[in-house]
């Protein structure tokens, strides 16, 4: 007898599922359009409101009819699994009176439950990812478009008044390329020193029985949180004689405690057997660290190299504080900042056309400064993907 009763609950047909989903999407779209009321005529608004109310009533009726056709037990089970449906039924009457369409969101779980879990997930994921890709890429498209446009044009995504003046100007600026070289040098040397120092320091910190471990942790924590301020740093750099040199742009930023902690956390999870078997073989500490542990920790080290490099590349604080006369060693971001802060009067007296192309030139600089990064991108990316997939930060 119960099996007969159960079959009242027919499996949904494909058309029913898509009708529900379709109706839901339309209703959502109408709700969003309602916000754009501003420039709509009253008659348009009236039709919109009417359409929405019709859809609302349709959903409500459909659900009520469906529930009525079930028996008590089935109703209970249904409402247990689909709490939102019950909420929708109850809430929609007062919401319709008070004109609050967003209660429709409550229908969402049910609509999605009509479809296969995995497929729904994949479709949603794809949708979200497409939106995100657009969100990330559009600003860059804008930059490219403005770099190629003529002056005074209002640009969205596509160049207006196609004009190569700003790009030719930037490419002809030799000081700009010197700044790129400076940046590359600073980043390379700085990353090397920093990652080396942090990796080495992370090793003893990761050993739980290491004496004075707590003290050293506090030592580094204070470095991370406390800063002496602008004046003491300048005085120090000056007394070391490093003012206006490339080293003043590297040394202050070498100790990056955040990365130290990341590496240390990773070292702690490396299985102890590896080390012990190496010790039995008679390996010294340096061999253990660099020949055995570091390769195992390669994904995290690679990530840290990545972060350190970015940090050095974008750093302008050091340039502002320590460079007064030697502007030839300005790294790229500082060079761009310096260029863009120029007094318009000076620009006008040196090169009047430049002033009218100012916005385009700004974007051209940005564009070309991203290029070195983009060129390294495939290398970084390939390494990251492979390295990271090899079981990185363990839980």
């Amino acid at each position, binding site marked *: 007898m119960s099996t007969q009763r159960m079959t009242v609950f027919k499996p949904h047909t494909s058309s029913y599922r898509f009708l529900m989903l379709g109706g839901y999407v339309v209703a959502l779209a109408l709700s969003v359009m309602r916000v754009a009321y501003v420039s709509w005529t009253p008659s348009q608004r009236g039709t919109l409101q009417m359409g929405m109310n019709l859809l609302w009533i349709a959903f409500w009726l459909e659900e009520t009819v469906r529930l009525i056709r079930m028996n008590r037990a089935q109703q209970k089970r249904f409402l247990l699994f689909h709490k939102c449906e019950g909420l929708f039924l109850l809430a929609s009457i007062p919401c319709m009176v008070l004109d609050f369409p967003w209660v429709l969101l409550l229908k969402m779980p049910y609509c999605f439950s009509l479809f296969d879990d995995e497929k729904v997930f994949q479709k949603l994921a794809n949708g979200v990812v497409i939106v995100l890709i657009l969100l990330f890429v559009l600003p860059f498209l804008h930059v490219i478009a403005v770099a190629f446009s003529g*002056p*005074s*044009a*209002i640009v969205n995504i596509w160049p207006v008044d196609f004009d190569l003046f700003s790009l030719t100007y930037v490419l002809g600026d030799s*000081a700009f390329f010197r700044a790129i070289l400076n940046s590359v040098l600073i980043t390379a040397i700085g990353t090397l020193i920093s990652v080396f120092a942090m990796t080495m320091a992370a090793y003893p910190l990761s050993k739980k029985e290491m004496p004075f471990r707590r003290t050293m942790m506090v030592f580094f924590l204070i470095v991370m949180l406390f800063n002496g301020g*602008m*004046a003491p740093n*300048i*005085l120090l750099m*000056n007394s070391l004689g490093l*003012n206006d040199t490339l080293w003043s742009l590297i040394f202050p930023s070498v100790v990056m405690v955040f990365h130290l902690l990341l590496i240390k956390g990773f070292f702690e999870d490396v299985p102890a057997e590896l080390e012990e078997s190496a010790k039995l073989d008679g390996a010294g500490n340096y061999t253990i660290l660099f020949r055995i542990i570091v390769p195992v920790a390669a994904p995290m080290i690679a990530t840290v190299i990545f972060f350190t490099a970015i940090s050095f590349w974008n750093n302008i604080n050091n340039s*502002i*504080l*320590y*460079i*007064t*006369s030697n*502007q*030839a060693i300005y790294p790229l971001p500082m060079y761009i*900042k*310096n*260029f863009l*802060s*120029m*007094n*318009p*009067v*000076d*620009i*006008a*007296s*040196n*090169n*009047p*056309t430049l*002033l*009218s192309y*100012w*916005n385009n030139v700004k974007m051209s600089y940005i564009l070309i400064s991203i290029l070195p990064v983009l060129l390294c991108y495939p290398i970084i990316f390939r390494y990251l993907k492979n390295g990271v997939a090899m079981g990185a930060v363990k839980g």
Partner: protein
Amino acid sequence: MKRIVALAVTLIMVLAMTSAYAQVDAFNVYCVATGKTVEEFNADPIAAMIQEQTGYMVKYDQAPADANDAMTAITNIFMSRSDYQAIVVNKNQFYSLLAMDALKDLTPFIETTTNMKEVIGAFGFETASVDGKIYGIPQKDAKKATNMGIAFRQDWLEEYNAANPNASIPVPSEENAYTMSLSNFRTMLAYFKEKVPQGGSAFHVDMNGVMQESILPAFGIHQEWSEVDGKLVYFVNHPNFEAYLTFMESLFDEGLMTYQATADNDGVVKMLQAQLLGAGKVFHWNAAAIEKTDAHELDDTIGYIGVLVADEDFGDLSKVRQFANEGYSLYTVVPKYASDEQTAAVIDWADKKLNADFFLSMVMGKEGETYTMEDGKYYPILPAFDEQKGIADKFMNGTREEDYANYWLCRTRKTQAQDKMFSRTNFMADEAGVKSPISVMSPNTVFDTYFSGAASEVRTALITSMFSSDGRMALKDIQAIWSANSGVEIDTAVNEWYTAWSGKDTFNTVK
């Protein structure tokens, strides 16, 4: 014995004949940002010219372009005792360094100069001295002029006039000295509002737009600090300020004026060109960008208003008043740790540059090669003028004040567009320009400490009040902000100086 005495006497005579200071041949100078690289700066032909004339080997370095970074760099120099013998600073930096007692007293050295004492006015040295001791070589802004005006679409105005022959608005032109009356301005803006497409606006104002230099004079406020009953008042405290505030607020409420949060005139220029904007405040160096030309043809679609006047004063040229700038904005200082010999060398070097003929050739070049003269006016020959004399002003430490006023005008004639705007907005600058006495005030501790903070607080309040309909504040609340930020002390200190100032009545030709 006699021979020894003779030798000693000769020695003493020789010593007495040479200058009191040992000779210093070379020194380093730290200048303001030039817009070129340091190598180009040092390789500029003007540098070679100066070396030939003065005999000193000078190495030039420049500050970063951003004002805050430049301040950090100069602080760095003084803190680290860097090897510079002369540093060019702006007014704020100068007063700051003065207060920290970091500069060398230049009075004894300036006494011995030939050109400097004559061509730099007493006003100038006053602004650079404390207790009669001069601490910097003041450099005067070239000429009493106004830098900005309101650019508007003249073609639309003429359309309006064609459509309304009975109520036509007189187009700003020579006969009315490029002015417009307030109500005509408002009507014009209303018309622009209709013409402008969606997303545009009739009149556009940026972050610095609370003090509209072209509109304030119409209400009787002629400068940032102007004289009322023998005392100087800040424009916010001026009795006529309320009328100005009401006018601007009404423009905003009627949708005739829009506001942009960023302070670059880029927005205004772009919008004017794209016909998204009816009118906006611009500087004369923007003119070339607006008119979309590479200098050689004029664009009659754009017109310029020098200043607005009150309705009843329109047409009466004697009633026109304008904001004019003329003051000292750059100072060449010598750090206290430089030796006397080096200081003497620096002053001597600056002095030699002020020689009449040399100054002309340094700033203007050769007639026929880089400039031409017509009716006593100088015209540049491009591109030679830009190539050879482009950064001439960066090599100056003090100017021949009277001559330079004329030389500098040459720069505003570089493009026809710039010349057009500059000459129109400055049509009556000589007669109608009112200068702010504060620009030649001597160092004043109270003012220098508190003014920029108070001014920025007041302007912030004005921005939030004027440009949002729900953030409106009553005038007395805004004035209360001035008082709350040591405004009263500033007023007292300023007037203490002003009432005792000798130049009080002669400084401005009109009031």
